[in-house]
Every structure is written in C-alpha cells, then in structure tokens.
C-alpha cells in the first residue's frame, strides 16, 4: 500500500484504527516486536480519550523507555535512574492541577528505584505509574533484573537465575497493593489482543484515580524483549503466555472504588 492509498478513503468507509493524536508520527528506536510501542500507543490513546493532552506532564525513566518524550506529544521531565516517582512527586506537588504519570521499566522501578516507588505509593501521591516488566535490563544489554525468572539466562547469570544465590523474582504489583496510599493496582499483559485490551482498561483506571484525586495508580504490564531473550518476536509473546503469566498472575490487586473504601485514605488530602 502506498501513502496515497492510505490517505484516500473509499466512499462509505470509516477509519476505525489509526495513530492517536498524542503519538508523534516517527519511527521508534525499539527493536522489532518490542512491546514498548504498544504501551506508548495505549498511553497516548488514553491521554486523548480523557482529554488530558494540554495538562499532562510525563516523567520518563532510564532504560529503553528513556526517549518516551520523543514519541508522546506532551510535556516531559527526564528523571535519574529509578527516581521517576520522586521527580513526579515534586512535579505533582508544585502543579497539582497537572496530570502526572511516570513510565518505568523493571530495572528502573524494581531495582534502583525500589525506595522511591515504595514511598511514593505509601504516601499516596496523586500520580499514575506505568511499570513495564520484561524481566531483563533491556537497554544495557540483557543483564539480570530483580524480576528475572528462575532459570532465565541473562548476560549476568549465564547459567540461569538461581533462587539460592539471586533470590526469587519480585512481584511488584502484589507489594504495591499492600501500601496505604494506593488507590488502584493491577497487572496486565501485552502478549495477546485480549490481554492488551484488558491492560488498557487497567491503565484507564490507574489514570482516573489520579484525575479524581483518589490516590496512587499503578499498572504493571508484562512485556517481551525479543532481543535480550534471544528469541523471535512471536516466540517472545509465547514466552509471556507460557512462563511469565503463571508466575506473575494478571488481575486487579487493589481497587478502592470496588472495595468501597474510597475516601477513607485521603482524609486531609485534596
């Protein structure tokens, strides 16, 4: 198909799926099959659907997603490694009228940024966190992350992660859901169309708890890294289905609206 054909709709046809307005029409630097693109698109779609484009401040992290601000057409701050929740806290407190979200990977959020995410969640900062978990450090060449599965081979555990020496993979959603300030916490996956659509619903709820001033919104997205897993994009999707989802169960871990506890944790808040 040429560009001319794309631009010319046939009479009686409607465009049902295209690039969201908040997503810049530019080739991403991600590898073929990398799920960051899907997560970026869903973030951009939700910003459009919720009408937040003019008042959003994104906080991007260190990792492959460092260039988030090149792809999503909103104001952005680049945080030091793992410190995105701390930077977002400052942004949100200085400008409480803005919509603030962070976009972090597992090497950033679950390792070096563990203290920041735990305390930001516990304080119930009015921010949304998109946590993309691909069980490996992607940008630096596939080192072991805290979320690397037992037996998974990476460049720093070439024999496979061993539980006795390196511990078990951290399940972040379960941990975050236990903290007091969290309004919504869920885990979705980007391996199939059904899971992608469900993940977008979770992301919408995590964004809405902030716009309603209810508390901290957290969504973990299971994603693939075909390059550092040393597999094809299709095999990477299969691995998420077969290996990651059994260890990282999908679902909602905390939803204060559904629990009926809404409002009890924001006394003296906004």
């Amino acid at each position: 198909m040429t560009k001319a054909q794309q631009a010319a709709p046939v009479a009686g046809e409607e465009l049902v799926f295209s690039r969201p307005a908040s997503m810049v029409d530019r080739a991403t630097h991600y590898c073929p099959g990398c799920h960051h693109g899907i997560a970026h698109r869903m973030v951009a779609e939700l910003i459009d659907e919720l009408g937040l484009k003019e008042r959003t401040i994104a906080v991007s992290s260190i990792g492959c997603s460092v260039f988030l601000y090149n792809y999503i057409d909103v104001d952005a701050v680049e945080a030091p490694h793992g410190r995105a929740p701390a930077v977002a806290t400052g942004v949100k407190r200085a400008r409480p009228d803005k919509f603030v979200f962070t976009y972090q990977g597992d090497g950033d959020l679950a390792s070096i940024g563990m203290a920041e995410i735990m305390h930001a969640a516990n304080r119930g900062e009015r921010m949304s966190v998109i946590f993309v978990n691909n069980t490996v450090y992607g940008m630096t060449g596939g080192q072991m992350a805290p979320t690397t599965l037992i037996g998974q081979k990476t460049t720093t555990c070439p024999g496979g992660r061993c539980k006795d020496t390196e511990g078990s993979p951290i399940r972040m959603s379960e941990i975050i859901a236990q903290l007091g300030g969290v309004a919504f916490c869920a885990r979705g996956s980007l391996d199939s169309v059904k899971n992608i659509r469900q993940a977008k619903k979770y992301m919408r709820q995590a964004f809405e708890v902030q716009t309603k001033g209810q508390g901290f919104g957290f969504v973990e997205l299971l994603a693939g890294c075909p390059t550092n897993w040393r597999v094809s994009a299709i095999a990477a999707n299969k691995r998420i289905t077969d290996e990651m989802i059994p260890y990282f169960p999908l679902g909602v871990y905390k939803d204060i609206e559904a629990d009926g506890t809404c409002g009890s944790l924001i006394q003296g808040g906004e």
Partner: protein
Amino acid sequence: MSRITVSEERCKGCLLCTLVCPVEIIRQSDRINQNGYKVAEVLAEDMAKCTGCASCATICPDVAIEVWRSKKPKKAA
C-alpha cells in the same frame, strides 16, 4: 468490506500481526524497507476476507497498521 493499510516505512517486520489475524491473510512480503526489515503485507485478492477486527493494529508495536471498515448499511425504512 474492510481493509487494512500497512505503513511500509514504519513496519519492522516483527510479524506479530500475522499471529493474531483471525482470517490469516497477513504475511511477510519479499520487499525490504529503508531500515532493512521485510514488511508485512496483505495480498490484494485476500483483502476481501478482512473482517476489520483491528486485532493486527492493536498488537502492532509500531502503529504501522490503519484499519478501515465500511459503514453498515442503514436498515430500509
């Protein structure tokens, strides 16, 4: 009738779209784009089978696919 358009500048040839198409009409072409990826394509004769479900566009990590769906004809009065 529905159809999809694949942006050959954006496609990285990951072929995730071929995995999710319910009528299996998307395939890898022999054409190589500017970045060296073999892009996905739908043959013109297969396009009539497209259901417009947008599964391929949903899973495409590079937002390279646009989906067009013909409007349902209004019921006769």
